[in-house]
């Protein structure tokens, strides 16, 4: 698995789209802080607006990165030389986790520095901001698992773009859950969806531990399901 992880990371570093994603996270962090300052909005929680946009872009770029293994048939080279399927899946999952989380970490670091310079420390309660960052990062990681799952099970370029398509209904559910507070089942469903967690971070998260737990369950379910499906899958 380490060999495959090394190859994946090497390929990722070579690709312009993945490098652009990392750059975009830094640009958006500075831009977000500037816009907040210009609007006279002296809160740090505006920094949680952009991770949702970032994760949608990452899901498309990350999904296509994995699905390229199928469209270019390079996955055959890995299987033919004896790599185990679980190893191939896990290497892809770790690559996606790095691809999703590292730029978001860059984003938060840059955003924190920019906010500190432009807004100052007043607009934030340290523990609440850190709680939100933790919820966001774990949710982003859970979405990386969904992206890997779809790209590895659909086995074509469609699997690469499916994650971003799925983001919209998930986002719609979270908006509906906000609007229709009385509908309990909608709230329960949204509690489980990482996109909803990220979407609700514009204010301090009321229950970060629960959201982190749900995101971890989401991650575990999709990773285990993806490995099980890939181990039995007939490829071309």
């Amino acid at each position, binding site marked *: 698995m380490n060999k495959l992880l090394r190859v994946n990371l090497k390929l990722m570093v070579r690709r312009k789209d993945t490098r652009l994603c990392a750059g975009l996270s830094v640009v958006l962090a500075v831009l977000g802080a500037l816009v907040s300052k210009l609007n006279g909005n002296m809160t740090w929680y505006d920094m949680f607006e952009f991770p949702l946009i970032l994760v949608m872009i990452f899901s498309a770029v990350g999904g296509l990165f994995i699905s390229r293994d199928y469209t270019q048939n390079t996955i055959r080279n890995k299987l*033919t030389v004896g790599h185990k399927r679980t190893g191939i899946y896990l290497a892809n999952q770790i690559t996606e986790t790095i691809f999703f989380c590292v730029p978001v970490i860059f984003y938060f670091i840059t955003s924190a520095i920019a906010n500190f310079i432009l807004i100052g420390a007043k607009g934030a309660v340290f523990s609440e901001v850190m709680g939100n960052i933790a919820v966001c990062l774990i949710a982003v990681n859970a979405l990386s698992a969904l992206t890997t799952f779809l790209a590895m099970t659909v086995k074509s370029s469609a699997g690469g773009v499916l994650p971003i398509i799925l983001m919209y209904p998930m986002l719609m559910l979270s908006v509906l859950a906000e609007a229709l507070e009385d509908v309990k089942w909608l709230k329960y469903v949204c509690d489980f969806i990482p996109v909803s967690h990220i979407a609700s971070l514009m204010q301090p998260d009321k229950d970060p531990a629960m959201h982190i737990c749900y995101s971890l369950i989401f991650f575990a379910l999709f990773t285990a399901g993806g490995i099980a499906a890939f181990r039995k899958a*007939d490829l071309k």
Partner: protein
Amino acid sequence: MDYVLKTKDLCKQYKDFKALKGLTMNVPKGAIYGFVGRNGAGKTTLIRIICGIQFSTSGSFELYGVKDSDSAISETRRRMGAIVETPSIFPYLTARENLEMQYDIMGMPDYSSIDGLLELVGLKNTGKKLAKNFSLGMRQRLAIAVALCGNPDLLIFDEPINGLDPQGIIEIRELILKLNKERNITILISSHILDELAKLATHYGFIDNGSIVREMSAEELETACRKCVRINVTDCTAAVKALDDMEFDYKISDENVIDIYAKPNITRLAAALSKEGCEILSCTEHDENLEGFFISLVGGDSNE
């Protein structure tokens, strides 16, 4: 005889379609094994199963004596290189970078042998040209180089000359022969371009409708395809006595059917047979090539 690959009663079912129906074949060590069959006969399915890309529904195979159910099969696959249908290469990398990636996939940190590989397949001077800008022949050669990473003992090529121009076909053929002769690599090559296969193969496996209908060496095939006079007689034993007396090279190919590998004087032959109390019912000149042999083996019906 040592066998690199043996399959036994291999079956593969896709929903309603049975692609392999108890396929049993044996690939001898050091051979160029021509795997001949029509489109949809099951050639690629078998290759995918051997490469671990798909799973068989039932049956088994052995690679270098290791069974497919054994956990060591993954490790054993490192002794094998394959091109399944289309070249599996990274289009946005150069030829050298592609090989570096394959070395990394295989966990080989020393890239020093890459130049030799590129020279072997004739891609040493491609420089910074990306694989996506290669011609089909160059991509195919790069795929062969990728398959050769790790010095495999067995190479599996699925339709390696499909879509190549005549020059490309010659180059690939010479490369395959060179690999077999100089490096003693066993090669399993599937193709339906029979004339080309006839220039390469030392052994043949004819597949039809998901099972092997016949396995034979190139010498056996040559014998089977030798120009002969085929006679259908009333009494085979009597005919054999007459033919022995006339000192002809012959083979009894079926009940009362004899192939004579000579140009006999038909009048004298008929007289000799008549003397032994045997009549000639029919007499035809028989001359087959690989294509004709294949058709006579699997029939000429469409497999649609």
